[in-house]
């Protein structure tokens, strides 16, 4: 093989390797940007649902917030103009929860939580897909985690009777727990015994 041929082969090899590196980095960037775009789209839908409610009168919905130390959920009322579809109503309830309590109670959702998607089944299970910052800024622990989960579940099922159970997803994925405690592998039914003054 002549020197010229060797140089030609070497140049081809270097060019090919550079191409492979470029494609790998391009693929990495595309894949990492996809979830962000999906989040933005979901956020836009959530805002749309909440900012453009139905034209009917306001109704009082009951939201449940954790009372740490008491191991109970405490009810607070909010006026909401219901959206027309059930999945948007689920979003409305969750957004109101994310805004936080008016009393000195716990925050079940971080204010920045994004509801990426809501799906309803005929059996009355609501699949709610949260962004990963659901537990951002919350103190980990069995009590805080369980109360946060039931705050979500009890608030949705109380106000939207067609929803019997709630299945929580994070970033589109099924997770075992939020932070190592409450079992999220199955849809969760409401627990009225946790409500202050409840059964």
């Amino acid at each position: 093989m002549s020197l010229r041929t060797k140089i030609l082969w070497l140049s081809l090899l270097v060019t090919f390797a550079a191409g492979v590196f470029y494609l790998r980095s391009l693929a990495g960037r595309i894949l990492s940007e996809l979830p962000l775009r999906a989040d933005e789209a979901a956020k836009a839908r959530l805002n749309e649902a909440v900012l453009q409610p139905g034209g009917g009168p306001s109704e009082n919905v009951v939201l449940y917030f954790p009372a740490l130390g008491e191991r109970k959920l405490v009810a607070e009322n909010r006026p909401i103009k219901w959206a027309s579809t059930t999945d948007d109503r689920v979003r409305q309830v969750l957004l109101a929860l994310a805004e936080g309590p008016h009393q000195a109670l716990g925050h079940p959702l971080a204010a920045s939580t994004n509801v990426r998607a809501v799906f309803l089944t005929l059996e009355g299970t609501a699949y709610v897909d949260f962004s990963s910052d659901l537990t951002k800024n919350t103190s980990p622990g069995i009590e805080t985690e369980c109360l946060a989960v039931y705050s979500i579940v009890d608030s949705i099922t109380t106000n939207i009777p067609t929803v019997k159970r709630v299945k929580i997803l994070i970033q589109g994925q099924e997770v075992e727990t939020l932070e190592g405690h409450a079992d999220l592998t199955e849809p969760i039914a409401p627990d009225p015994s946790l409500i202050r003054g409840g059964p």
Partner: protein
Amino acid sequence: MLWCGLVLLFWPARALRGDNFVFYFPSSRQLVPVEVIGNSKYLPLLQVLNLVGKLNGLQEKRNTLKVAFGKSHLEFHADDEEVRVDKKTMVLSAPVRVSDGRWMVPTDFVTSVVPDIVSVGVEYQAGANRIFLGDIMPGSFSVRLAPLSGGARLTFRFTEKVTVRTVSVNGKWIMYLGDHPIEPLEPSFRFQNPYVAEAQFDDQDGWPKLVITPSTAGLNFYSTLVEGGKVLLADVVKPSAPQAKAPPPPPPPAAAVSGPPPATPAPKASAAAAAPAAAPGPPLPIVALDAGHGGDDAGARSRDGLAEKDLAAQLVSRVRSALLSSGKYRVVLTRAGDINATFEQRTVAANVAGAVLFLSFHAGNLGGNSPRVALYTYQPPSPAAPPAGDEAKPGLTAWDQIQEAYLERSRQLAQNLMQRFTQISGLSVDAPTAAPLRVLRSVNSPAVAIEVGSLTLESDAGALASAAFQEELSAAVAEVLAVLPGGGGEATR
């Protein structure tokens, strides 16, 4: 050929999980998992730096990492052996790597660079997976093997006093040597002897111990501490052979089923002399102790830095000691050391061992005053699932529903614990409640989760970190279990 070459060229170096590197500090010890990349052992750089000092900042650009550490500035380049430490260039034994987004340094970074950038005294032995930082004087020991009538005697002469607790695992005898750090002159000693094949020192879980491997099966093992705890005599003899020296009176039985202690400080072993370990212990029931979280999942954290995983491990260690001292139970730990075991791994550890009770320890924000304890039993996430009844029924039970057969007995156990905890002065105790706890779901025995608090970033750990509180709580747990109906050898599921 060309394709094969390119694939090999760009294939990422395979990272294998190896053993641990132990960092000994004056009042604690920390384990850092060693990864094998290529043919070299690596440690996660930032985890190491966080352990040995204060990270003031870092800047990552493409293949370069700049770290402000204490008063030093370090610069690393991926796939490069050279490390810049201020104006000095140091060469490591292998290139710095980036594995799964983590900067990894070869283990000799700890012994070559770390001594230059920390302000405390550093002691290490080249090639060993341990380092002593601060005011620590590790002990050491020498070994001698001598024949006995029908056996052999190993004499370990220590520079410091030790305590000994012996357990028998997989045909070997393990002698835990207390919590004083030890730097062996040699990691292992091999013998051409019909009774003893090897005596090996190990502290991969942070706890110094000797592992004695017999040359053949069916031998008995007796250990005795003499000369004020500085000399350990370990006799390996035929079962029929008379012992050269009468064995010491047997202390409480050691755990035959027992994982190594967790990687956090534990109470000192109180036994001055070890028990004969060859004879199998009585068939005591087993309690599974589960320290929540672990590894990269630290759980909750206090303002002064106490992590839930470490607090849980400390409590488990103390409860374990208290239970073993009671002589009523053996103990199985669901996680060995500072690892993040999955829920299934924890459950399997308990169920396969045939544990008759399961206790999971956690810490978190309980609100209100501290210290406080909350107790939880299992509650299915959805009551629509058909209940399995109070007792296990014949036939197959779904793995993920098995705890439902023990709900009532779990509640009773939680009640008993609550009643005992209320006797602890200054401790607030919440009544037991049911919650859909993932860790309890598949446990095939009565199971309770114990959460202590409040461990939050808003306050210091306070009493939760104190040995006195932990001892009192652990003793209370052991007391409750010791008087359980059917406990202490009669407990059955």
